[in-house]
């Protein structure tokens, strides 16, 4: 089995891979909740019952073809920084990290499939893909679900579908979500309107790490709320349609900003570049704010296109637990801010100043790399 350091050494596949619509949709994620028949749910189970459920599930999960040479560990055997790193990579949930004895994580080598054992439900399975690929992620995960059905007795009801600990997940047990980067909608003050409209059709929207309403780095997650009464296909189709619409709004807002106020856009991107290239102390909020603008600059042609990927990798690597893992010791917040600045400077070292005059051509059919 894979060691933690080996797992984490490489960026996840979905952080480096190219996906459809990557400039706006960072990742697509699918989660399925499943439970064992006859076993008490993890939150209600006594310690021995949790252990018992784990003993049933773990061999079945580890035997999955995709989990060959996977990372498989009980959370009790990981230290708090290691658990936090998994949370920051979206491989386990905060709730799972906080759970005690009998909880485990089994994560596929490339980190695109992660299974939480004894989270709120016995099994929380996740597939994550770069760009807009909800369907691809769902198909991958559904195949794993089919495999597990052969070895595990899952709790299923003919009326209520897959039975989950919380009734809000009944039915399909499906949570589908996409992470969107929407700086132009924020800059042009249209974001509230768009998010309200999304909410009105029964989809949930939240900021990057789901704390309050504020969104760091102009990152928003859109997901389904209802899981019962509709098929997976219907849920995915609605979500795909809405995400495509939001992405179109963002694309239009980017074009309009360039047209209406190129000086403002240039200024924002130029300043972001300046701060990130030359800061020696930077907290995560400031870093995310500027990385968001730099990422926008990459998409708009002020900076090389691969700036987008560089920013995405940094979004992950500048988080607190990642910084501590990187330096191999516990860091005070002050130390984190200076190490964060150091890492950002290092990664952007060869990035030339934004080309303010030549922004991306309108004609999409003729993308000219020479312009950069």
């Amino acid at each position, binding site marked *: 089995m894979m060691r933690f350091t080996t797992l984490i050494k490489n960026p996840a596949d979905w952080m480096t891979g190219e996906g459809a619509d990557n400039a706006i949709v960072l990742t697509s994620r699918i989660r399925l909740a499943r439970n064992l028949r006859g076993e008490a749910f993890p939150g209600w189970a006594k310690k021995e019952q949790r252990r018992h459920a784990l003993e049933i599930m773990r061999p079945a999960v580890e035997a999955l073809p995709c989990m060959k040479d996977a990372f498989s560990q009980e959370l009790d055997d990981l230290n708090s920084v290691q658990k936090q790193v998994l949370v920051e990579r979206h491989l386990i949930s905060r709730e799972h990290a906080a759970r005690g004895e009998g909880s485990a994580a089994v994560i596929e080598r490339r980190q695109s499939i992660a299974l939480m054992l004894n989270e709120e439900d016995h099994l929380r399975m996740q597939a994550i893909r770069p760009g807009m690929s909800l369907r691809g992620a769902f198909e991958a995960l559904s195949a794993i679900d089919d495999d597990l059905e052969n070895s595990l007795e899952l709790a299923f009801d003919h009326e209520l579908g897959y039975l989950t600990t919380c009734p809000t997940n*009944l039915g399909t047990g499906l949570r589908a979500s996409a992470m969107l980067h929407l700086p132009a909608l924020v800059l042009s003050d249209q974001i509230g309107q768009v998010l309200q409209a999304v909410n009105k059709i029964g989809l949930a929207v939240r900021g990057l790490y789901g704390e309050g309403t504020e969104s760091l780095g102009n990152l928003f997650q859109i997901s389904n709320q209802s899981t*019962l*009464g509709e098929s997976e296909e219907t849920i995915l189709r609605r979500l795909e349609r809405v995400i495509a619409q939001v992405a179109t709004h963002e694309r239009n807002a980017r074009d309009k900003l360039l047209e209406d106020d190129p000086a403002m856009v240039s200024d924002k991107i130029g300043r972001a570049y300046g701060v990130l290239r030359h800061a020696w102390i930077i907290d995560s909020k400031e870093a995310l704010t500027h990385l968001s603008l730099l990422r926008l600059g990459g998409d708009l042609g002020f900076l090389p296109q691969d700036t987008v990927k560089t920013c995405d990798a940094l979004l992950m690597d500048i988080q607190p637990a990642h910084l501590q893992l990187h330096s191999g010791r516990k860091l005070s917040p002050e130390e984190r801010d200076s190490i964060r600045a150091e890492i950002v400077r290092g990664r952007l070292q060869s990035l030339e100043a934004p080309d303010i005059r030549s922004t991306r051509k309108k004609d999409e059919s003729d993308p000219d790399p020479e312009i950069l």
Partner: protein
Amino acid sequence: MDCDICGKHAKVHLTQLVGGQIKKIALCDDCAKEKGVTDPTGFALAEMLLGKTPGKVVPSAPTVAGSGRRCPNCGFTLEDLRRIRRFGCADCYDTFREDVNQMLRGMHKGFKHCGKVPAGMMELHERTQRLEELRGKLDQAITSENYEEAAGLRDEIRQIEVRATPESND
């Protein structure tokens, strides 16, 4: 149980999560219609109702049928559900089915699963759905005094049930 608004016999029971607490309201047909509670999006509306009739709402007493019931598999009670808003095991859903059905109002787009079914349960699932459909038709046929059709439907139901029995016994 009586209607929380007018005191007539209540037919509509709502269980709601209000401010993190599970609350129940009972309404007669007329009041339910008047308040638009039959509308599945009336989630917030029930909250409003609860606010209007604070004296009538019993926040913790279980329904007569539900009182003292305990999941035979995991020992979970309705009190526990109120406290932690999560169930104890899959069997709890059978034990508290009525309460679940009330709780689902406004929570989801529907009340019935129409998604993926585990491959091993497909046959049973289809049979269950077919039986339900036939029983619905049977009720309709009887109501409209179409006894010939009702007899046919009853035969069909019996056939499916008989076919199912030997399988479910082994």
